[in-house]
């Protein structure tokens, strides 16, 4: 087996160690939406919850089941959205996440679950708007 330390990039290791943005939104009002995607046969299940104020993400949190890349990707996306304009979410996709995490090709299926969860969140926002 390849040693863990060489199988994961420094970015993945940092994100996994900190899991920043994990958990639930604080119950302090504002418009909250969520999106979820799962593919348990691939070992991934991701849920994003965001609070939106005006045209910005005031906060974004995630919950996830999956490999280190899945958890790191969910944390990366949640961190990227917090404080960002809504439009920023549409430029995030699995391919970009994979590049940023230096993820191997076999992880793409799980990163697509992360992207699907984000798309579900945006679709939910479109419905409630």
């Amino acid at each position, binding site marked *: 087996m390849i040693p863990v330390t060489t199988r*994961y990039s420094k970015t993945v290791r940092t994100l*996994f160690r900190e899991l920043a943005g994990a958990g639930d939104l604080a119950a302090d009002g504002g418009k909250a939406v969520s999106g979820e995607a*799962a593919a348990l046969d691939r070992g991934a299940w991701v849920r994003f919850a965001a609070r939106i104020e005006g045209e910005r993400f005031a906060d974004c949190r995630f*919950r996830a089941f999956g*490999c*280190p890349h899945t958890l790191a990707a969910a944390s990366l996306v949640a961190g990227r959205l917090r404080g960002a304009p809504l439009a920023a979410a549409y430029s995030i996709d699995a391919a970009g996440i994979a590049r940023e995490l230096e993820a191997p090709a076999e992880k793409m299926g799980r990163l697509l679950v992360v992207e699907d969860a984000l798309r579900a969140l945006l679709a939910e926002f479109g419905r409630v708007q």
Partner: protein
Amino acid sequence: MPGEEAVYLDYAAAAPLDPRVAAAMAACLADPALQANPASTHAAGQAAAERVGAARAQVARLVNAEPEAIVFTSGATESVNLAVLGAVRAAGKDRRHVVTSRIEHRAGVAACRQLEREGHAVSWLAPGRDGLIEVEQVAAALRADTALVTLMHANNEIGAVTDISAVARLCEARGIVFHADAAQSVGRMPVDVALPGIALLSFCAHKLGGPKGIGALYVRRRPRPAIQPLQFGGGHERGLRSGTLALHQLVGFGLACELAGAALAEEPAQVRSLRERLWQALQPAAPLWRNGAADPSAPGILNVGFAGIEGESLLFELDGALHTTSGAACSSATGEPSYVLRALGLSDEAIQASLRLSLGRGITVADVDRAAAMLVQAVARLRAVLPAGALERIA
């Protein structure tokens, strides 16, 4: 091997080399009187051959065999291949059927798959949810043209133990060659090849504190089962395994067997006790479950599943602190989900949530308690970020 702070619980993959074995091997390598080829007829060669004989006797004693019945190989994988392919190919065209199980080590599975490609029929026995293969299943699978029954003694992933004594008697009564893959049991629990019906038995050094790269195949002498060799050359090892013997490896293997034999009276019970302590200490991480039967089982193997946990993340969380193997990667270097756990009926999610913890000589109560504490903490951290409902679904 583990650093000072790490807990090593991967004895089923390889036990740490016993320092006494390492010293004996180093001494052998450095001894000017032991540099000749043991097959050479001159005095220096004969000095080396004497050491080979001494090692062969040590290895044989551990399984209650005659020294002449031990064929040295490069490890259990080669032993299993020699036993399975060699015995079936030698059985002739009228005996083209093999009985094995779905939870064999990959060496046994691959050897039987090769026989299928060569036109042989293979019956793959399915274990119960407890991982046990019963003698009645073997009896029901036997045919008039069965050449070989090959089964693991102790399973490498879940530790379930097959009653090889009963299977061997059954085979003997039917005139069928029986091979036991005993890589996980020799040196860890009593193994006696003098039991009626055991014709072939594979094992290796690195599971019992010896070096990697050396193993043995026990080949019963009377009656001797017919075996075709897999490699050819100088006719070493009774013509079954040509190739110059690596004396330092044999010295290490021999001493490891002697040390394991001396510890057999007490060590299995001690290791089993530590394993049960570990299982109890993991209970705060409930919901969790045990894969495979607690008894009969190899003393040091505990396969445990944690609801809602993905094995790769759990191993990553523990990296550097606890060395072990996840159910998602138990099948050697392939990274595929464990076919052994699948054969037990586990879902993909339950396989991913499973971890093999294997203990052996040198593990202490403090190691067990520390490993359990690390696991409980890691499981709690990963569960804290699960989506709602995941704990119930992923089990």
